[in-house]
């Protein structure tokens, strides 16, 4: 208890204990999260640890026995625990209180033990860091954290701490042996060391950056591989193969390329891609389905017999937003499509709601002509089935309908058909149309085949004057029967390659029209397109989804499966715009009602408040967020705030679900500075109206509760990072990569440790080499002198405060039988006498090195030598043998 050096104590507290507490901070945080110790505040945990470690350090530095105090501690804890369990709580509380006490006790005892060990045990910090690193690696692999940088920054502090701790501990030891230490110098040294260590680590990470990127890619790749199922089909048709893969990839990228051209076979799947509610009815009970258009095909490649999307199309009536990029509940609108669609008469606004299931949500699907898109929330019960939803507003012609070829018994549909033919017969002809427009949409490739098609069309339509009648005649041709009463044209997914051996490069289109009469939708669309165009009717092919009205229980709701992907012809009628005329005959082979349709998703509760802005604060503990709101929708009224009136708003996100794109994520993954959309369905907010007209926004907002309770938070889709919320089948591969990762991190830690451990040996080798090769007797004796001191230091007999001579005479020579004293006398002579060494002495100096090393090392077994050499703290201590005094 005597002579407590308070400065030393304070020094230890500040530079050893405080960093230890700090290093425990993130770890305890992670542990708390991992074990969902939500009822324990992490600050509290850390302070428990801090109290333990500080008390123990203070007590044990003052040379109090460990066992006695520890025994007392255990006794006190035991008594406390017993008294807690005996206090009559209700059952629930008792469980939690007892558990909480247990956890706190464990942390406290760990802190206590650490405090004791740091003050007493030289090697404890190594053990401590190893334990910490192991726990971190374990946590990382379990938390499924796949962001490499995040992992590094979780592990880096522990590794840094290892070096820092060793350094400071040795420094403390040095201080203890000295008197009158200059503490300012010591502190500067520590700071310098910490800085250098940090810089080195940072440099390593920077150097590893490319490697890290590679690893990151590996992780992402392995996740994607998990998505893909069985792609080992050895189909020679490479394109089909790859497309099949794409189609198979859980619909993430549904591909319609097959519909662009004429193929010998078409592969389809029956996966649900999306469902839609199209609010378009002929009368109250009869829905009028509309085809879902993805894109228009205006250009045709006759050699490949394939359509291409013309990027420079003169008509830009296709609205192509990326729904995932639109903030929730805010809409994106393009009014120019309404000009290009040329609809002037008999139009109406149709609102559709699209629920995306298997389709990539970035692909916008809508009835033509869509002009606005508004992403909306999905009711919780349907969130598993559908990943994204949006409202679409389209301008639809009253004359447009999916019904064209199909026979139906529904009288209202028959009436509707008749009515629209009648109206269309009144339509203007194309005389007033722009020449460029007409020639663009009536263009036919040159060639015999197309002349033949023209002749066929002419023969079919020769008696008809109006456009609609011409269209009908072509339709009727496809629906007509042959001499045997069989349908002339049949639908098949496998039309096969042209069979005529005389024509090697026979056209599949010609084969279809003039020989087999078998094909799928693209064949019908292509044939009718050229027939229409040869008749001078502007037309194009649209690709999208055929809408089939199957669900009679829920009129207006349509389900779209992968096999409903479709291509058809659209015809331009003056004043009425582009109308769908699908010439494809019905699929006789297809089973009726191939899939039972599901229940339509309940529309979500009406959103009452939507706010969009930059995230400024995310508090994951109290589940609060703060946003700099620039746009709001309150009760359907959009409010845009200019830069002057941008408002800081607090939100309570306790009950909120957080979505990044269509993925549900945890609040912790929300990044500051991102734009977030906060949605509330609270009906109470709906009743809050501005008290006066033209009331200022500030005053209006004061009527709302603060913080506002939010049900949904939408943040932008996370780009590089893939989050823990992965489909279950991926987990294994992810964990595998993370395990690989942990191995990599551990390996690099080991490498650093190895370098640290090897440096003494390297230094030793360097000295030996110098001793052997240098000519100057002075240099050799200098090296011998250092070599001997270093070797003995590593072997655990440091010189300490003795003089070299005494050390050599009393310690080294008796122990090893070396001539160290003789060497030291010669060394001192060289150092202080100014005399030159005699030849004998030079000879002795030269021979001394190997003799000394041999004799010293022979006293240790091989394992002892290695063990002594790799102990990093001895090396640090040797190098630290610095003058720290004033």
């Amino acid at each position, binding site marked *: 208890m005597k002579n407590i050096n308070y400065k030393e104590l304070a020094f230890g507290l500040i530079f050893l204990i405080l960093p230890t507490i700090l290093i425990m901070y993130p770890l305890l945080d992670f542990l708390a999260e991992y074990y969902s110790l939500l009822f324990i505040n992490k600050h509290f945990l850390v302070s428990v640890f801090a109290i333990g470690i500080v008390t123990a350090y203070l007590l044990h530095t003052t040379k109090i026995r460990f066992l006695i105090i520890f025994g007392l501690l255990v006794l006190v804890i035991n008594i406390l625990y017993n008294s807690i369990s005996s206090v009559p709580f209700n059952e629930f509380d008792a469980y939690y209180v007892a558990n909480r006490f247990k956890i706190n006790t464990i942390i406290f005892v760990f802190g206590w033990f650490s405090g004791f060990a740091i003050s007493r045990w030289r090697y404890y910090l190594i053990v401590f860091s190893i334990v910490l690193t192991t726990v971190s690696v374990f946590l990382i692999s379990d938390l499924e954290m796949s962001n490499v940088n995040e992992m590094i920054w979780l592990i880096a502090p522990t590794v840094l701490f290892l070096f820092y701790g060793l350094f400071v501990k040795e420094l403390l030891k040095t201080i203890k042996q000295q008197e009158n230490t200059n503490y300012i110098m010591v502190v500067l040294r520590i700071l310098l060391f910490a800085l250098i260590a940090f810089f080195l680590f940072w440099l390593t990470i920077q150097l590893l950056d490319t490697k890290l990127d590679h690893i990151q890619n590996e992780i992402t790749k392995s996740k994607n591989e998990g998505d893909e199922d069985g792609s080992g089909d050895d189909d020679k048709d490479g394109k089909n193969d790859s497309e099949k893969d794409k189609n198979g990839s859980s619909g993430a990228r549904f591909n319609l390329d097959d519909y662009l051209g004429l193929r010998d076979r078409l592969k389809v799947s029956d996966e649900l891609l999306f469902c839609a509610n199209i609010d378009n009815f002929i009368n109250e009970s009869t829905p009028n389905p509309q085809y879902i258009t993805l894109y228009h095909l205006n250009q045709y490649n006759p050699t490949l017999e394939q359509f291409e999307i013309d990027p420079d199309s003169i008509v830009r009536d296709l609205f192509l937003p990326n729904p995932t990029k639109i903030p929730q509940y805010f809409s994106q609108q393009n009014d120019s499509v309404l000009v290009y669609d040329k609809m002037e008469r008999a139009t109406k606004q149709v609102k559709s709601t699209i629920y995306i299931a298997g389709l990539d949500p970035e692909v916008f699907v809508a009835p033509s002509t869509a002009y606005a898109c508004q992403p909306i929330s999905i009711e919780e019960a349907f969130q598993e089935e559908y990943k994204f939803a949006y409202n679409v507003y389209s301008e639809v012609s009253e004359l447009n309908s999916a019904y064209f070829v199909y026979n139906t018994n529904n009288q209202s549909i028959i009436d509707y058909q008749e009515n629209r033919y009648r109206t269309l017969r009144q339509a203007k002809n194309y005389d007033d149309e722009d020449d460029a427009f007409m020639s663009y949409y009536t263009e036919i490739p040159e060639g015999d085949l197309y002349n033949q098609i023209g002749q066929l069309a002419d023969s079919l339509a020769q008696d008809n004057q109006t456009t609609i009648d011409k269209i009908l005649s072509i339709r009727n041709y496809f629906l007509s029967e042959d001499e045997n009463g069989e349908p002339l044209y049949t639908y098949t997914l496998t039309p096969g390659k042209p069979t005529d051996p005389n024509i090697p490069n026979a056209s599949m289109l010609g084969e279809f029209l003039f020989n087999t009469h078998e094909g799928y939708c693209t064949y019908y669309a292509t044939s009718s397109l050229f027939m229409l165009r040869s008749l001078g009717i502007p037309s194009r092919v649209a690709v999208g989804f055929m809408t089939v009205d199957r669900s009679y229980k829920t009129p207006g709701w349509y389900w779209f499966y992968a096999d409903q992907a479709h291509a058809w012809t659209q015809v331009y009628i003056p004043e009425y715009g582009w109308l769908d005329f699908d010439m494809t005959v019905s699929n006789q082979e297809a089973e009726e009602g191939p899939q039972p349709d599901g229940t339509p998703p309940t529309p979500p509760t009406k959103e009452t408040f939507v706010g969009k802005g930059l995230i400024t604060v995310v508090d994951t503990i109290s589940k609060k967020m703060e946003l700099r709101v620039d746009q709001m929708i309150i009760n359907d009224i959009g409010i845009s705030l200019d830069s002057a009136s941008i408002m800081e708003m607090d939100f309570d996100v306790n009950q909120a679900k957080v979505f990044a794109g269509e993925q549900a994520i945890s609040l912790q993954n929300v990044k500051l500075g991102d734009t977030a959309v906060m949605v509330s369905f609270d009906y109470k907010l709906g009743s809050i109206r501005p008290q006066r007209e033209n009331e200022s926004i500030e005053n209006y907002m004061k009527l709302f509760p603060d913080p506002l309770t939010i049900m949904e938070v939408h943040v932008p889709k996370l780009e590089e990072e893939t989050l823990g919320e992965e489909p279950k089948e991926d987990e294994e591969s992810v964990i595998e990569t993370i395990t690989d990762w942990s191995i990599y991190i551990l390996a690099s830690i080991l490498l650093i440790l190895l370098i640290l451990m090897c440096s003494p040996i390297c230094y030793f080798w360097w000295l030996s080499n110098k001793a052997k090769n240098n000519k100057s007797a002075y240099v050799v004796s200098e090296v011998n002198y250092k070599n001997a001191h270093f070797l003995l230091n590593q072997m655990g007999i440091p010189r300490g405060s003795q003089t*070299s*001579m005494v050390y050599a005479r009393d310690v080294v020579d008796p*122990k090893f039988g070396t001539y160290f004293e003789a060497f030291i006398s*010669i*060394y*001192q002579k*060289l*150092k202080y006498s100014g005399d030159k060494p005699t030849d004998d002495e030079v000879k*002795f100096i030269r021979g001394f090195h190997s003799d000394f090393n041999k004799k010293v090392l022979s006293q240790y077994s091989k394992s002892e030598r290695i063990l002594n050499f790799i102990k990093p703290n001895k090396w640090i201590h040797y190098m630290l043998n610095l003058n720290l*005094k004033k």
Partner: protein
Amino acid sequence: MNENIENTNSDHQRFAPPSSIVSSPDSPGFKIDLLIDNIGKVVKGHREQIIQIVTCLIAKGHILLEDNPGSGKTVMAKTLAYSLSGKHGHSDFKRIQFTPDLLPMDLIGTHLYDEGNKDFIFKKGPLFSNILLADEINRASPKVQSALLECMAENQISIGDKTYKLEDLFFVIATQNPIEMEGTYPLPNAQLDRFFMKINFGYVTKEIELEIYKKQLEIQRSQDTVEPVLDMKDILMLRSKAEEVHVDDEIIVSINNIVRQTREHSGILLGASVRSGIILLKCLRAYAVIHKRNYVIEDDLASLVKPVLQHRLLFKNLGAESNAIQSIVKTEIDRLSRLNLKK
């Protein structure tokens, strides 16, 4: 440990330290060993102190022994005196027991009336000797003390208008009792300064004490029959030799550092004077000669700073004396041991 040396006997033939570092038996340094060994035969277990005393002897200084009665101070002084041969066989050894009623003239001597010559003649006191043991110096009155110290400093005595030179080899071994007693006059610092060293004997180790008891008769006999092993001329020769000892600049820097640090050290009230530094330098030279070297090394510094400086300093805490000096010395030794060789 002996085994180890035997094991490496084969190496011994091939590799051994050069003989040049072992001095020849004729060299004066070797004779010092004889002297030290000779004293060591009688005064067991105090080799370090013997060397320190001999160092003072060669450095032309005087020494103050501080220890409890019965620790062998007197025997030490006597044996040293008898080991040196002079004109009368042994060197001239005198012993004065200092008491409160001692007068300066008891030391210096008095003028006596010579009946025959009808004149006063000077009757030389004990100071006119080669080796003087001033026992319990702190019990005498300050007057006596200062008389002694003046002689030590001047190496001569002035009485009236006459100056009497003391012997060439005049070496005072003063002892004092550390226990505070009534009727003692502690030496003032200024006077302590004149002693080159103040050393403590301390108790011998258990083994040596046991040996002393066992071989008591033998030791007693050798004490009575101490043979002179060194001529006083040899001592004078060694003294001149010491003046030729080379002191490296770095050692001088270290001496300076040490002396200066005693003035700055927080635990020391009164630091060392310049004279202390000079005395330290003299002692280092003598010490090097004793160790058969003509240059001073850091080890010399390590062994001498404490005995030379300790009694010249005033410490804040009594317990911290040795700590303060040790830490200062350690710093300097560290500095020196890390110096690179000058090429």
